[in-house]
């Protein structure tokens, strides 16, 4: 009961904030929440399971495009479109993960890099199905039980997504499955000797986090009511990696801090350095890797244990 009220409190607080913000800030707030959801998932894959993949944004895009195409081109009802969208993510994730995790280490990185590139090419060349370089626009979220969710009330949906993602990942992390993931990351041979099926653990972690990215993509599709290719490219996939490293990989709190900080940083930096904030990110990531591999959350831990 205590934990339930905690979750409820977090939901009310985070979604309540949206009603106090103006349109512009609400938009910034929502996008930040989406980055948090993505970073949480990517942290599980990269930080906890130790898999280097660049396909997280591709799955975000697969989710977004799937739900839009299913709803507005194939006229599938919303609940079914969501289920099918998740199913598509799962199938694609399995198709990438099963062959590449059977090979050693580096191959997943290569396969997901290829997938991410291929996905953008498909979007650009998809003709009327994907809308080509312009993407798809001018659609609206169907009514849900007679309600049309928009503005701050749609932000509540995003808050729900973040909390759901966090709930699932935290539960997994604190279970035998999360320990198996960490064991696979730290020492695959020892993990196998303890009875952990290394390949299977990797495939499950990859598929699950990819599906979560897909769900986030579906929610994203109705934030701007437009989906277009540049969002789902490699730039953002690398930014996600930076967020997790700067915040502290392997820790949920680290992922949240990294996502919030690196998302908001350009807003403060652009008056100072214009569009060169990527340069600042590069320096931050290098500093994190060289000086504090445990990221900002590692700094915080160190500070707390000293005081």
């Amino acid at each position, binding site marked *: 009961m205590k934990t339930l009220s905690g979750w409820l409190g977090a939901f009310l607080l985070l979604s309540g904030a949206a009603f106090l913000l103006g349109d512009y800030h609400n938009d910034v707030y929502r996008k930040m929440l989406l980055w948090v959801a993505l970073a949480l998932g990517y942290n599980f894959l990269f930080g906890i399971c130790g898999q280097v993949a660049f396909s997280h944004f591709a799955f975000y895009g697969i989710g977004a495009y799937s739900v839009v195409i299913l709803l507005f081109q194939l006229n599938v009802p919303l609940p079914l479109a969501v289920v099918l969208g998740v199913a598509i993510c799962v199938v694609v994730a399995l198709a990438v993960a099963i062959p590449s995790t059977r090979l050693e280490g580096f191959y997943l990185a290569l396969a997901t890099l290829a997938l991410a590139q291929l996905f953008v090419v498909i979007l650009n060349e998809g003709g009327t199905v994907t809308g080509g370089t312009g993407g798809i626009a001018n659609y609206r979220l169907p009514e849900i039980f007679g309600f049309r969710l928009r503005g701050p009330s749609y932000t509540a949906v995003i808050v729900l997504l973040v909390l759901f993602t966090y709930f699932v990942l935290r*539960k*997994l992390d*604190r*279970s*035998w*499955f999360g*320990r*198996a993931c*960490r*064991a696979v*990351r*730290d*020492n695959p*041979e*020892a*993990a*196998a*000797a*303890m*009875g*952990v*099926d*290394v390949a299977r653990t990797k495939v499950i972690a990859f598929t699950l986090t990819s599906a979560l990215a897909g769900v986030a993509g579906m929610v994203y599709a109705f934030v701007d009511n437009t989906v277009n290719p540049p969002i789902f490219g490699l730039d953002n996939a690398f930014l996600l990696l930076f967020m997790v490293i700067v915040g502290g990989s*392997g820790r949920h709190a680290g992922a949240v801090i990294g996502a919030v900080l690196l998302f908001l940083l350009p807003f403060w930096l652009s008056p100072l350095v214009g569009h060169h904030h990527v340069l600042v990110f590069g320096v931050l990531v290098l500093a994190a890797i060289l000086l504090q591999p445990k990221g900002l959350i590692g700094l915080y831990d160190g500070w707390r244990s000293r005081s």
Partner: protein
Amino acid sequence: MTAGVLEVRRLTKRFGGLTAVTGLDFDVLEGEILGMIGPNGAGKSTTFNLIAGTYPATSGEVRFAGESILGLPPHRIAARGVLRTFQHNRPFDGMSVLENVLVGAHTRFHMGVFSRKASNEEAQRRRRAEELIEFVGLTDVRDAEVTTLSFGQGRLLEIARALAGEPRLILFDEPAAGLTPAELERIAGIIRGIAARGIAVLLIEHDMHFLLPLAQRVVVLNFGAKIADGLPDQIRADPAVTDAYLGSHAAAR
């Protein structure tokens, strides 16, 4: 003679032209400490890795609890109840001592992550892991990061982690390597305690002074073949063993 928990028959392993293990036969009985010794390159580690599933065998048979385990991947062999320690400690660095031991219990979790009974199972396994940590004497560092452990503590962790998998057979790969005399005595006591619980112990060891007082039976390998098999006292007196192993090695000590 009672059938062993582990039965190894005509086990052979060739690496290209090199025959590392030739026609090896031996059994390990329940609650018994079987020592396996031999000079460097005698095939001890290869035998160990064949049983644990790290390498495929060229021919022969390995039966555990009456069923063939040869050709199974390591994680399936562990799930059957054959757990191992590593000669060079291989902890999971990013985790605490307790979590490391809980990874050892991986195959003993049967509830789904989101199942209602999952937290009961987790609590039960955690208590069991704490008992094992106490058994090997690491209670003081239970919540410490494993990177802060000494080498000897790391070896104790290897043992607790393997025990968490509830083995019927535990394989020790040179557990004495790199330990101080005080730590050796401690490990010997722990290994006796494990066998006393009815667990079969296969102990591969280089250090005769550690192994002979501890093992109930000893198998001696040289050039990949068994050259002797018997009680520690018989092994000490066996001229073939003295020639192959003790002659050069014991004199140096």
